[in-house]
């Protein structure tokens, strides 16, 4: 879409910047507003028209929140979910993906199609029967429903993503290793895994986000054990009925605490994030 005339080019680019900047501001306002509110007194939260700069700056909100709610306990529980999902995604999903990408066996393509089709199914479809199964085997009100499936590499999206990446690694490398007597498992662990660090990093980041965010499963399967709640469920229980927010400054402080690790990871691993997103799209 090249514009020949230099003046027209300046005008059109200026217009584009105007639109994109307005969009950027709209995208950032909710985040800025959250942080700003988290540092306000309850009185200032209620002021109209809204004030953007907290005055006084209530850093103590971030200390009080640990007193108001068992945040440390929720955080510990969240870390259990995160550990299971990240480990399961990086190790198990990659193991499975290697099978789909590099080993030829009868039924492979049909099974892979099956795997992709599970990507489409909303989780609520399985919510009730899974509840029944977990109830029968005594998993209700334990961490098992939110860790065992993850450790088994349940997430079809991660398998799909890693398979796409593995298929791009030159087959000659595996062949050379095979000649040297390396087994398929050795090739996966010693050759494909080290070469796939960017894709693994992307998957680890997505896995962190998904488990940090996991809400419905812990809500339903661990409903009877408030002490096992992860942060997402804890934050939900802190707020009143639908559409209400008592103690907004605390809620925004806890929201900020929940958003912060994601922002840090995003800042550090932006390259892998973007790579992961594009990898999923381009070769689809």
């Amino acid at each position: 879409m090249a514009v020949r005339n230099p003046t027209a080019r300046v005008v059109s680019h200026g217009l584009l910047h105007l639109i994109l900047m307005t969009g950027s501001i709209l995208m950032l306002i909710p985040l800025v507003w959250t942080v700003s509110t988290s540092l306000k007194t309850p009185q200032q939260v209620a002021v109209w028209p809204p004030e953007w700069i907290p005055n006084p700056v209530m850093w103590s909100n971030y200390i009080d929140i640990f007193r108001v709610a068992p945040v440390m306990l929720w955080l510990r529980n969240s870390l259990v979910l995160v550990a299971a999902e990240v480990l399961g995604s990086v190790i198990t999903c990659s193991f499975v993906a290697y099978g789909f990408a590099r080993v030829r066996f009868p039924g492979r393509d049909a099974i892979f199609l099956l795997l992709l089709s599970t990507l489409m199914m909303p989780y609520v479809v399985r919510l009730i029967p899974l509840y029944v199964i977990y109830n029968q085997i005594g998993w209700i009100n334990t961490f098992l429903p939110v860790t065992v499936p993850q450790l088994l590499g349940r997430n079809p999206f991660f398998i799909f993503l890693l398979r796409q990446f593995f298929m791009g690694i030159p087959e000659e490398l595996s062949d050379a290793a095979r000649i040297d007597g390396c087994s398929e498992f050795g090739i996966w662990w010693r050759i494909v895994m080290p070469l796939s660090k960017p894709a693994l990093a992307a998957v680890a980041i997505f896995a962190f986000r998904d488990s940090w965010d996991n809400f419905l499963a812990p809500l339903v399967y661990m409903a009877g054990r408030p002490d096992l709640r992860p942060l997402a469920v804890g934050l939900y229980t802190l707020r009143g009925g639908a559409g209400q927010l008592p103690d907004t400054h605390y809620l925004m402080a806890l929201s900020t605490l929940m958003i912060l690790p994601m922002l840090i990871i995003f800042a550090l691993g932006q390259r892998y994030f973007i790579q992961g997103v594009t990898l999923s799209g381009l070769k689809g």
Partner: protein
Amino acid sequence: MTGQSTKLERVVTTRSTRRLKAPRWLIGYVFIAPWLVAFVAFEAYPILSGFYHSFTDWTATGRAERFVGFDNYIEAFTRDPLFWKAVSNTIYYIGVSVPLGIVVAFALALMLNSGIHGTTLYRTIYYLPSVVPAVAAVIVWIFIFETRRGILNWGLELLGLPAIRWLSDPAWAMPALIIMSLWSIGASVIIFLAGLQGIPQELYEAAEVDGANSWHNLWRITVPLMTPTIFFNLIMSLVAAFQAFNNAFIMTNGGPNNATLLYMLHLYNHAFRYFRMGYASALAVVLFLVVFGLTYFVYRSSRRWVYYS
């Protein structure tokens, strides 16, 4: 594209198979075994047992379940007053948020790909909201939508517009959910942008020689070449829209006056609030069949409009 690579793979693998002792198919199954176990235990078996429960009046209260035939399905389609409300709400939500998200993301990607400065910075900003955890995002948006303290109404006031009771007015609650869904279109923007960057520049140069303007370029070159990416984003957006349980559940819990009662929420209510597990299982089966049918339809139709070079 994949057809070629698998053919190549076959040549390479058959050559190496002869040297291996363990049968190669067995090795393949060993690799995919963890997922297969998870699939059978946590996907296939639950869905099949859900089918079974949908024909019973099971309540999860310890009472023995009875076989009731198609009663649950008949109730859903003819007697449940909220069933059709939930269906039409879901069609409203998906029918607006998915196409709107795709169009906005595509437009943003086009602008970012026009050779202006700061593309990387813009891309980062537009993706940023997508990393915000869903529950935190909903809490933040409840606050933004508040009638008296919310900054959205403050913005309307600055523009001289009247305040809107976003989450308590049945007419505005669904638009509120859709606005919130637009906040996280960053992943679609990035995928579109990567697709656009993959279009060979020579095509535009050739078109320019032929006297095509940017409008022609957009519809004759960019959009046709982007159809595989559009198709991918369409599928991913549909998946996300069908998972949109959290937002409606936390923000409005189906209210006001059932205006945001999405189908997924209706199902959840019957299962875990009224403990009518048999009936909720029937609702789940209907959802399963609809998603399955929709996926199949989109996939089949894609042969007609998706262009693979």
